[in-house]
Every structure is written in C-alpha cells, then in structure tokens.
C-alpha cells in the first residue's frame, strides 16, 4: 500500500529527509492522489517502445584528458557550514 504513512516514512529515509508525523500523514494522502493520476500511463501499450532519457542529439561526449584549473580550496570552502585545515568537517563516520 503506497499510501501508507509507514511507506512514506521508508521513502523519506531513503531520501535522507526527516518528516514530522503531520507531514507524513499529509504527504501520504497527496501522494495517493498523484499516483492515482499518473496511473493513466497504464492505459498505453509501451511493450515495444524504447525509453527516452534525454532529448539531446549527442552521444558519448568526451573531452581531452587534460588537467584544467578548477575552483581552488579556499573558494570551495567559502560556504562550508563547518571547516578546519582546508577540509569540510562532518560528524564522526567511523567508530
């Protein structure tokens, strides 16, 4: 049952996004409406249709394997919420 709030809670976990109980309930109802609407795609027979991932007429765009200048460390860190010694600081990951 996709409309279950527990299902929404699971999807929210996959998306690494905390939702309140009220948000879960509201979103479950809205998602149910939207999924009911998009179910109209089941009316079509797409068995022999290739998917379209994008509308570009290009394939395998490659550049030369050359070193190019990029944003230097100080600029990259300018908006960091927490930094030290030219690094982004995050909570401990490995025990």
């Amino acid at each position: 049952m996709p409309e279950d709030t527990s299902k929404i809670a699971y999807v929210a976990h996959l998306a690494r996004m905390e939702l309140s109980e009220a948000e879960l309930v509201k979103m479950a109802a809205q998602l149910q409406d939207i999924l009911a609407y998009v179910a109209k795609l089941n009316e079509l027979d797409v068995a022999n249709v290739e998917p379209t991932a994008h509308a570009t007429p290009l394939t395998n765009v490659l550049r030369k394997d050359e070193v190019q200048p990029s944003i230097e460390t100080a600029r990259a860190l300018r908006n960091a919420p927490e930094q030290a010694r030219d690094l982004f600081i995050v909570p401990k990951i490995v025990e």
Partner: protein
Amino acid sequence: MSLHTLTIHGLREKLRQGEVSARQATQAVLDRIQAVDGKLQAYLWLNPEDALAQADAIDRSGAAKNGKPLGGVPIAIKDVINVEGQPCTCASKILKGYTSVYDATVTQKLREAGAVLLGRTNMDEFAMGSSTENSSWGTTKNPWDLSRIPGGSSGGSGAAVAADEAIAALGSDTGGSIRQPAALCGCVGLKPTYGRVSRYGLVAFASSLDQIGTFTKDVLDSAILLRVLSGLDPRDSTSVPRPVPDYAAALGKGVKGLRLGLPKEYFISGMDREVEAAVRAAIQKLQDLGAEVVEISLPHTDYAVAVYYLIATAEASANLARFDGVRYGARVRGEDVIDMYGKTRGAGFGPEVKRRIILGTYALSAGYYDAYYLRAQKVRTLIRRDFEQAFAKCDVIVTPTSPTAAFKIGEKSDDPLQMYLSDIFTISANLAGVAGLSVPCGFTTHPKLPIGLQVLGKPFDEETVLRAAYAYEQATDWHKQRPPLS
C-alpha cells in the same frame, strides 16, 4: 525620460548615440525598483552600489557606446543561476546565506556582452512550482493585479520585466517556468531548444528537461539575448556544437506561406473562454499575414503531465541529494552523519520540494522503477514522436501558453495536482526538447490580465519561432501595454 521602460534595442540605441550612459540607465531601473518592488517583491536581492559600479566600469571601458550587444543594459537573473559574489538561494531556506563562488556560463556571456547584472529574482523553491508561492521568501505579485500570482517558477523575472524593473531577465524552464510566467505577466518568454544554451552554473532541478532562457519586452530583444547566450560550452556536455545564427537578422522575413500547426488536443474543454478567443484571434491574425493553418495531432498530450511529474521528480530527487549540510548551506546538527542529513534536509526544504523528492524517490525505488520511472520514459518517447510527426506537416505549432490567465494567490496552493495541471500546454515541449516561446496576445476583460500565445518550433529552429512571433507582435500592440502600477 523614463529609461526603465525601454527595450534592449531601444536602450542600446540611446547608449550607442551617447545620449545616455550605463550609469543613467542603471539608476533609472534602480529607481523603478525602489518605487514598485515593495508591492511586487520580484527581487530577492539587489545591491545598487554594485550595480552602479558595474555600470561605471562599462561606461569607462566604452562598452556602452561601442557595438557590444548588451553594453550598459541592466538585466535581472533568476535566483537559480550563479553570479560570482552574489547570493544564490534558489528561494530555499537550505541555501540561506549562500554566496556563489563562480559564474554560470550564461553569466560570463552576459558580462562579456557588457550587461549590468542587477540582482536576483524570486522563484518557486528550486524552480518547483507554477506561481512563486513556493518561494521561502514570500510570493511575488502579478503587476496587473496584486492579488494574483505572476506564474512560476520564474515569477520574479516575469514580474520584473513586465513592470519595467529590469530591461530583460534570465529564467529557467523545466516544464514551462519561463513561458507560463511570461504569459501571465505580459512579456515575451523564450525557452530555447534543449542543448542550445549551456546550463553550467544553473542549479539543476531535472537535468533532462532544464533549459535557461529569457524574459524580454519584445521579440527582437529575445533574438538579441538568445544570440549572446547560445553556443557550445565544454563545461556542459549537453550543449550542442551547432553554429549560432544572427537571430535578429532573420526576424523580418514575414510569415507568408509559413505552416502553423494547430494541435486539436490543445483546444479542448477546460480552457478559459477569453483565453481561447484571444488565441484563436491571434491565429487568424497570423493567417491574415499570410500563414497557413494545418490541423495536426499530438495524440499523447493527455499523458504529458503524468510523464513529467514522474521524470522531473525522479531527476530532482537525485539532483537535490547534494543539499545535505556538508559543503554549503544550512546545517542542522545530528547524532551522526545520517541524522545530520535527515535533520538538515527536513528543516531546509519546503513542502513542495519535499513532496517532489518523496515522489521521485518512490518512483525510482526498488519494485517501482519499472512501473513508474521506466514507463514514463517510454511514454516520453511517444510524446517526442508526436512532435516529430507533427513537424513533418508544419513549421511551427501554435497553442495557448496557459489554459487560464493569472489565478489568485492561494487558489491552488493546497491542491498540488491542480497546480501541476496548470502547466498542461508547456510541459510537452520540455519532454520533446523542442523550442518554445510565449508572446502577448491579448487580455481578459474583468480584471484585465495578460494572455499568452505559445509558439513551438523544431529543435534548433528558434529562428522560425522568433520570426512567427515577431510578425504577430509587429501587427499588434499588446506588448506595448503596461500594468497600471503607480
């Protein structure tokens, strides 16, 4: 002299002649913003001193007087395109305080062309919405009726240009986010073909659909600006190595013999009567000018909104994963890194963005991928084929841009599906990757609100789109009318 009311080409003429300076032009636009933006809230950020300093530099360099295409022209930029040293928040709390550390390619091109980069315009958070009501910093008002929405997601850019708060503006269009606000505010909005303009430095929403484009006061300005922005960029692998034509040079060829495709699926019930009448009158006008009408069919039109809301949300759920409180933006502390991500994103994103991340994550999750995302991509192929077949019979397709004029603030904000359906006429162009433009084609009567005519063209055939829109515009005076702001 009211310099702020001028077009790009009108202002450039005065700058070239030395009648005015870039500083005077910029000051005039800043004065206009000062006078009306308290009511409209089109801008999120503005730095008059910085804008005037840019203008002075342009005056000193002689760029205002010489042949630089935008020398001394003040231009506003949607808060989703990076301008080094200016904020870029995508109207989201999660990017509050963020300052861009580099220029988008279009920003660089504007600078090289001599433009003054005025400030940041309001939008729906991360470009998700059709009204700017999803901005974290408040709703922009429609200049024609302050109780109504300006459209979205680039509503700030649309309102700013319509209200003469900028000579022109940039926006982005993922499902209609340039064309719909242009129609609802009464200016010209151009979404170029996917691949025509580099997206490097545009904060990504749905990467297979996003395209940067323009808001201008007339079609000639769209042509001028498009030439500046277009072209291959090694930093965007989806930008296409095709020559950039002189779009303005091709405008005056007229529409004699041009085949206008009328998709029967677009003239159906549910459309506002005044909108339909205005669009039909515009088509008649184009016929009077020598164009021929061909009935065409885009049989999968009815599926476009469903396809769009699966593909766009799936791509968004992946693109927005980068906003996790590690490298930039707001961070909410947590017990461990996963907890920090969850709290940061839960506090930083607004309701519509959360809704779309959930829908997109769901559509991509194990067990649902084939049923939702893959199926949507297959139906996208059918929609693309519809356009290929239609363009075998016609040169451009003409439709309404939006089924209604601007709606009231709050009217649809509690009903996401109804809001999504307001994009019904614009979404297909992004799915198919074709070019599209909205040009003013009339007004409703009570209240007086702008109506837009949408012109869709073959991929990379912006020239014909602009030519058709120009012929129509020059035969009418809708684009000269201004909202009754004091």
